[in-house]
């Protein structure tokens, strides 16, 4: 029989039960207790009203179901592999999930990772007596001390939105892992289209050059890699002044803003299957593009290849999709984990970069913008709340982002860590912070 629902919630000063909860934490986990004491409570919270069960609303988000908390916890617990002895629970909530897991006698240890100590202190204060705090199988740990998910794990979904800054690395990994099956399914659905594109582009592959001829061509070189993020706008003057001693590699969406500013890249990269990539450049005059090399993956739409007036070089990605082409027309594989920006950076590294400056690589929506002015389909996001994840920008302030961008950031950070021989620099502090890329001093540092 399950224990009674732990903690009826009321907005009230910390009563005796709350004090007992905190005392239990202090006894067993003094480091955790100290961190809880130092953590400010959320600025905005309330107990849910007019719902069958009570839950907390933190910044307008429910911490748990307000109808059947234990039912929700049972659903979450059902994902645990049946032969598990230990489990990691990311996010504390009220402990409903922990309570359900404690019913599983085969579990030897339940590691509860606190992803927002301020919220967790609030829960401990506001709840009735939480018996699970006293179970010897439960361990409380701080998310701030960890960088890698441990398996098997379960997650409290609300903390994906509410995690504190020092738990964002764990939060991002959770988001990636939880969304991975859906993304895989999405790409599987596109396989027929990809194969069709490879067939359509065979004539181009047969005659176009090999991106590999660029590898090692600029040893100890200085490169500037340009994405189409909003901060590109405020760095065009810097780019114009620093262009001459660097090799400029861009994504296709940034080509128009660059040409509008009178800046001409050496190389443009395209690898997305979407016909929208052609829209990035179709309205541009042919003459300036005639001197720009297009490096492409052969799933791009053939219209782009037919249009491109400059040299074309092909590459593959490290995927089985390209295996048959690889045998027939060997081409190198470049790195990509979801975005052409990754590939542009990898090309710079493979060309021999000693230093790579990243411009417009924002992976976020600074000032609510999607792209730099002049980029095709640049827009404002529909209110900051519609992109409900946030990450920290180069000034340490929250900036809206989304799940895909979080994945790009974390994967790129791992890539940068694998290349200590290259100095990576970044401009555009309104965009997302990127571990492994040093921020350059900027003249415009408002906001």
């Amino acid at each position, binding site marked *: 029989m399950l224990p009674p629902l732990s903690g009826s919630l009321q907005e009230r000063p910390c009563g005796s039960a709350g004090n007992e909860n905190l005392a239990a934490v202090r006894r067993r986990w003094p480091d955790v207790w100290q961190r809880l004491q130092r953590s400010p409570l959320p600025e905005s919270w309330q107990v849910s009203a007019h*719902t*069958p069960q009570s*839950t907390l609303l933190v910044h*307008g*988000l*429910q*911490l*748990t*179901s*307000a*109808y*059947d908390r234990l039912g*929700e916890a049972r*659903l*979450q617990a059902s*994902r645990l592999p049946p032969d598990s002895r230990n489990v990691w629970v990311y996010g504390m909530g009220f402990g409903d999930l922990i309570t359900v897991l404690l019913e599983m006698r085969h579990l030897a240890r339940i590691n509860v990772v606190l992803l927002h100590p301020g919220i967790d202190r609030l829960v401990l204060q506001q709840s009735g007596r939480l018996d699970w705090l006293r179970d010897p199988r439960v361990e409380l740990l701080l998310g701030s001390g960890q960088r890698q998910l441990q398996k098997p794990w379960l*997650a*409290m*979904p*609300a903390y*994906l*939105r509410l995690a504190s800054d020092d738990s964002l690395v764990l939060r991002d990994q*959770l*988001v990636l892992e*939880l*969304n991975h*099956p*859906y*993304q895989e*399914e999405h790409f599987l659905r596109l396989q027929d289209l990809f194969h069709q594109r490879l067939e359509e582009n065979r004539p181009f592959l047969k005659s176009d050059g090999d991106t590999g001829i660029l590898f090692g061509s600029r040893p100890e070189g200085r490169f500037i890699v340009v994405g189409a993020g909003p901060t590109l706008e405020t760095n065009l003057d810097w780019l114009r002044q620093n262009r001459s001693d660097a090799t400029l590699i861009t994504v296709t969406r940034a080509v128009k803003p660059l040409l509008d500013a009178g800046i001409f890249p050496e190389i443009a990269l395209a690898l997305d299957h979407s016909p929208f990539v052609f829209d990035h450049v179709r309205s541009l005059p042919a003459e300036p593009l005639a001197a720009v090399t297009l490096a492409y993956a052969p799933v791009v739409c053939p219209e782009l290849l037919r249009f491109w007036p400059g040299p074309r070089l092909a590459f593959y990605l490290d995927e089985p999709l390209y295996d048959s082409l690889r045998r027939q027309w060997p081409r190198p594989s470049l790195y990509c984990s979801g975005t052409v920006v990754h590939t542009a950076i990898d090309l710079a590294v493979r060309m021999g970069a000693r230093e790579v400056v990243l411009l417009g690589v924002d992976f976020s929506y600074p000032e609510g913008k999607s792209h730099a002015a002049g980029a095709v389909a640049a827009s404002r996001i529909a*209110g900051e*709340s*519609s992109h*409900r*994840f946030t990450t920290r920008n180069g000034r340490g302030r929250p900036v809206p982002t989304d*799940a895909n961008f979080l994945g790009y950031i974390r994967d790129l950070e791992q890539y940068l860590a694998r290349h200590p021989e290259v100095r990576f620099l970044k401009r555009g502090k309104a965009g997302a912070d990127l571990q492994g890329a040093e921020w350059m001093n900027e003249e415009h540092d408002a906001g």
Partner: protein
Amino acid sequence: MQDDLRKAVFCLRLGMEGAGNHHLATFLQKLSGHLARPDIAAATPLPLLLPHIQALVEAQERGDYLRAADLLEYEIRPLL
């Protein structure tokens, strides 16, 4: 349509936002088509249903996925 609702609830309660939003969008699309039929609309308590649909959309927009799951499972499904 009920299957899309169930899948949306399942995914949202587990934090699988991509899949949850996909099934939620599919459910809302099918519901819209469903309610466009006069016989269905007449048999559905629209004055009760529509405010919950509005609340659902608002919950999704602000990323309040457990609220969205609650509305789907306990308020909207019983009315369909």
